[in-house]
């Protein structure tokens, strides 16, 4: 579409643009306008980007053509391969070979003639070449069959892929490139897994051929495939290097590879390479977070004595890690600072911290006692990111990640009680973090998410204590914890919660519209006291039927309080959470055979009375009970 200087034209909104485009087509169809008039009208306006992308609906149609033709060629190709595999007994070998070679040449010839003489059928021409490349594969398999070749499987794939490359280069054809790429990928994994040893030859192909070809063809899909294949190749081949001794050290090359991709993204900041940058950034980010995220889980898992130690790591591991490490440094230094935007700058600044986190795996085997240290790489990265980009997203992810990390502590701790004492403390801290975010107006959504998450963790743990059977078994196994990790985590959760609580002073309704309601102000100390009180009861051998009764009673009262707050605030999440846990608690107690009927009766009657009286009080003061409008 011809467009002049856009600033002089009237800008069309997206809806308007879509309407106009649709009706212009209708007017042309019904003969009111001709094509020239349609184009003249089209050129009067400045169109929004999305509509400019595909001017006359030509591109989707062309894409459909490409797909149909490619599928057609592919079907013919695999059809021929199957015919060859049929292994015709009546045809002499030389005749079969002649037929195949003739058809390869014919398909290519036809393709080239179409491309040269009839450029309007470009896609058909490329599809004919694609067919020729498939027939070429059939030829390779025919020879393998003729001579009963057994090792031909992976070598055959390699020859097939290699023979396609010159045509890919010559025609800049992405379709044929994908065929070669797929064949190379199947080839390398076939070789590596078949021989059960690292397949280094693929590196030459990937770095020397497939990578450069992706750039040459400007194929973003091809590049993305190459980068992902590189990561998968690194992992599979590392596993094969280590043999049966799986090791935490596997994570180091993978993390370094991801960081290297992040660093390399900055080399694509300038000029027309910008499109590739996103690919490096996304794939690098995914691989790095995958690798670094695994590390903390390895801490609590007892280190396998059979696994590799630093002394027994193979030279190939050191070479690989060394190369990646220098690659990251080189890419970081080579990036031209003036070309980088804020993302690029923060990546460059993050590189040392990411490297530190990745290299932390070398310390993992030494962390047998203090497994909280295994969280250190994530903490380093999250805190560094906070200082460099002012963004707290990684810190928040770290907080949520702990929810999933905590259960791994049980591998070291003999008693599950400790985990379920930590969870309510963690939940209370998360709830207060939510309030802290809510008190800073701009983070209201984040605040609600953390409040919900914190209460969920708190009440889920409380639910465990509400069962008399579980409580009994906790009491039986109780031993005073000597684990440094337990006390450290407890201290961190309490210190964090109290610090946040301190910051909430004055943030109360009605002075502040979103402030704490009276029932919420009352609940916070209760939430904080609960884990400590529970632990105290177990430590003093007080856990019996009475404790279970008290836990159930308190839990129901707390849930009612949050339910009231939920209705007053019109917070659907709070109402739902309180109702679900209430139903769960009451239902479980009602069905629990272990519990004496007297206790059940007392619990239900007592809580019932409290709720009823609460309801009546609300009704009486219904005009004074504030419902907060959002």
């Amino acid at each position, binding site marked *: 579409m011809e467009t002049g200087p856009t600033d002089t034209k009237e800008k069309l909104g997206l809806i308007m643009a879509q309407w106009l485009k649709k009706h212009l087509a209708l007017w042309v169809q019904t003969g009111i306008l001709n094509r020239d008039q349609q184009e003249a009208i089209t050129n009067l306006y400045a169109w929004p980007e999305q509509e400019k992308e595909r001017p006359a609906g030509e591109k989707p149609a062309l894409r459909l053509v490409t797909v149909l033709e490619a599928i057609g060629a592919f079907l013919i190709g695999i059809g021929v391969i199957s015919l060859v*595999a049929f292994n015709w007994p009546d045809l002499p070998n030389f005749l079969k070979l002649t037929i195949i070679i003739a058809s390869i040449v014919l398909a*290519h010839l036809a393709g*080239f003639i179409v491309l040269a003489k009839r450029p309007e059928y470009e896609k058909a021409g490329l599809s004919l070449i694609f067919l020729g490349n498939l027939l070429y594969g059939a030829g390779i398999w025919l020879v393998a069959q003729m001579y009963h*070749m057994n*090792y031909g499987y992976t070598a055959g794939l390699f020859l097939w892929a290699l023979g396609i490359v010159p045509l890919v280069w010559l025609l800049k054809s992405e379709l044929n490139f994908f065929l070669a790429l797929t064949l190379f990928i199947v080839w390398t994994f076939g070789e590596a897994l078949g021989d059960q040893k690292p397949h280094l030859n693929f590196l030459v192909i990937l770095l020397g051929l497939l990578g450069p070809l992706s750039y040459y063809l400007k194929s973003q899909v091809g590049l993305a495939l190459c980068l992902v294949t590189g990561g998968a190749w690194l992992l599979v081949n590392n596993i094969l290097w280590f043999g049966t001794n799986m090791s935490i050290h596997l994570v180091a090359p993978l993390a370094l590879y991801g960081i290297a991709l992040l660093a390399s993204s900055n080399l694509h900041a300038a000029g027309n390479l910008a499109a590739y940058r996103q690919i490096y950034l996304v794939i690098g980010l995914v691989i790095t977070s995958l690798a670094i995220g695994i590390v903390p889980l390895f801490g609590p898992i007892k280190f396998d004595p059979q696994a590799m130690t630093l002394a027994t790591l193979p030279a190939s591991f050191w070479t690989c890690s060394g190369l990646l490490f220098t690659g990251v440094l080189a890419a970081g230094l080579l990036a031209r600072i003036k070309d980088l935007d804020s993302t690029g700058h923060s990546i460059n600044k993050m590189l040392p911290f990411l490297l530190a986190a990745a290299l932390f795996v070398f310390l993992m085997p030494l962390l047998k006692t203090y497994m909280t240290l295994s969280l250190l790489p994530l903490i380093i990265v999250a805190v560094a990111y906070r200082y460099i980009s002012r963004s707290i997203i990684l810190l928040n992810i770290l907080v949520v990640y702990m929810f999933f990390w905590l259960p791994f502590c049980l591998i070291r701790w003999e008693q599950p009680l400790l985990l379920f004492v930590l969870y309510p403390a963690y939940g209370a801290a998360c709830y207060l973090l939510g309030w802290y975010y809510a008190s800073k107006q701009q983070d209201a959504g984040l605040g609600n998410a953390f409040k919900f998450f914190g209460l969920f963790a708190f009440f889920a743990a409380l639910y465990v204590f509400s069962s008399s059977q579980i409580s009994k078994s906790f009491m039986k196994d109780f031993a005073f914890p000597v684990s440094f990790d337990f006390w450290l985590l407890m201290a961190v959760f309490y210190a964090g919660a109290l610090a946040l609580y301190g910051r909430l002073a004055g943030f109360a309704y009605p002075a502040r519209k979103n402030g704490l309601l009276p029932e919420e102000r009352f609940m916070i100390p209760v939430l904080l006291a609960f884990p400590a009180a529970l632990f105290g009861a177990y430590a003093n051998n007080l856990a019996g039927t009475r404790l279970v009764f008290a836990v159930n009673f308190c839990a129901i009262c707390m849930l009612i309080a949050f339910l009231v707050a939920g209705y007053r605030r019109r917070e659907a999440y709070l109402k739902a959470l309180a109702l679900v846990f209430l139903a769960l608690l009451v239902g479980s107690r009602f069905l629990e055979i272990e519990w004496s009927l007297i206790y059940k009766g007392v619990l239900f009657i007592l809580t019932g009375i409290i709720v009823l009286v609460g309801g009546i009080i609300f009704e009486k003061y219904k005009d004074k009970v504030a419902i907060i409008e959002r």
Partner: protein
Amino acid sequence: MSGKRSISWLLAFAAVLIQVALILSIQIRKELSLRSGKRITVKIVPVDPRSVFRGDYITLNYEFSRLNLNQIKHDKTGFRRGQQVFVTITITNGEWKAVAASAEHPGEAGADEIIMRGSVTGWPSGNSANVNYGIESYFVPEGKGRQIEKDIARRLITAEISVDRKGYALVCKILIDGREIDFR
């Protein structure tokens, strides 16, 4: 990627020629190996699977596919998976059996000896290793593999193998009671 392409016919010709040449190069190499190779007939045990690319085939197991390292001469080093290995076989009582295995080509073979090149497969242990010589498959027309399988119990099935001077082996034909199978 639109508009009329300027195609160099010379390069296009070269690219297609490469494909044809690659196919022919394997074909010619195998044909030469077959013509120059020594022929031996060995006892086999066939089973019948199928390959998507090459069709039905029978898998051939040889006496010398599994080496008992306690009974034959071999290099001091243990064999690794995927390692290239040269196996010397000799005829005793009408059957070809392995007598030696080495990582390097042992040089000239004796009068009744043949040296075959293979690679170690599976998980070799201290006293045994499985060797793949590239002659473990015999491709047959669709459905014919099962016929041969039926004959295993009743008849003597052998394969004629060609081995060239470098140790590369190929299967020439399958014989049942000494007569070549005709699939026509």
